[in-house]
């Protein structure tokens, strides 16, 4: 949806007045007009859209925008070829780390069900609206958490608990596109 195109804006304006626009289209219109000077014939409409604009408390796009703003370096779920390459490298590193840790630290405290539950809870909070289920496989002092997303994709994480501090960490090892 290219709102720089006046024809698209005009078409959306008509849909807006007929209450046929989606919430996200209305949000996009309000953001556009708050950032751009409207043309003469659009002034009244732009004024109404920006004045009436709320906070779209239930907007999915807004929640996704939060994730982009809050974690600009986070790996997005929709990956491109470069991120795939990075993902494969991370998987390789994680597998290597797994074997190294397994060989050097033979007696580790096994991860507890309570800790796993905490990990699942934290993972749920990363994408509360996108995740439909999470499976956990305990492996010694770690657990592999696999989140199934609404669109059918799966994301896997290695969950570890830092000894001493008890801090929980989740490392993404596979983000399926």
């Amino acid at each position, binding site marked *: 949806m290219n709102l720089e195109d006046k024809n698209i804006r005009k078409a959306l304006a008509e849909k*807006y*007045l*007929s*209450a*046929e626009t*989606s*919430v996200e289209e*209305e*949000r996009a219109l309000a*953001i556009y007009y*708050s*950032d751009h000077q409207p043309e003469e014939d659009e*002034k*009244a*409409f732009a*004024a*109404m859209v*920006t*004045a*009436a*604009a*709320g*906070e*779209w*408390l*239930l*907007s*999915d796009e*807004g*929640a996704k*925008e*939060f*994730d982009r*703003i*809050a*974690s600009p370096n986070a790996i997005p779920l929709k990956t491109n070829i470069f991120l795939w390459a990075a993902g494969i490298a991370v998987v390789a590193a994680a597998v290597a780390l797994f074997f190294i840790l397994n060989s050097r630290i033979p007696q580790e405290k096994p991860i507890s069900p309570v800790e796993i539950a905490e990990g699942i809870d934290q993972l749920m*909070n990363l994408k*509360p*609206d996108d995740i439909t289920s999470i499976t956990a496989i305990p492996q010694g002092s770690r657990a592999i958490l696999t989140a199934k997303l609404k669109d059918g994709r799966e994301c896997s994480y290695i969950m570890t608990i830092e000894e001493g501090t008890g801090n929980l960490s989740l490392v993404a090892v596979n983000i399926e596109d």
Partner: protein
Amino acid sequence: MTREEFDIFSGKVRGELISVAGRINLGDGQPVEAEDIVQDALVRLWELSERGYPVNNPKALAIKITKNLCVSRYRKSQKDAIRLETADKPGGETAADFVEAAENQRIKSSLYNRLTPARQECIILRNDFGMSLDEIAETTGRPKESVKVLISTARKQMLEQIKEFL
């Protein structure tokens, strides 16, 4: 959800919501006022519940509202920063722009106040909460087609009023 259940729920999730809100900063290194945003988010969640919105997963909904409030606050801070940067520059925005921003809320109230209660209710649920037509229909108990007509009529009425202002 009863008020008591809501209070217990709020106590449980407040810390987590503050942690979510604390993840964003306003561009100048200032974190958003996380506690204020969370308080606002919880109030809005209660309002939704009170209005009859189906709150199936209150925690997920509270997180979503918190995120949207953060984004709204972030966008506002970005715009304010641009205003400050350009205020004294030739061609930049003038004091009138500041007044205009402050006036938006007053204009909005003025426009809303002239609507019939039914139109006003639908417009608030749509614009402020971002509900879909189906959700508004479910929340208000009106048929979806009636909701659509109420919103459309309200918008056309507001547009005519704005044209009188300009």
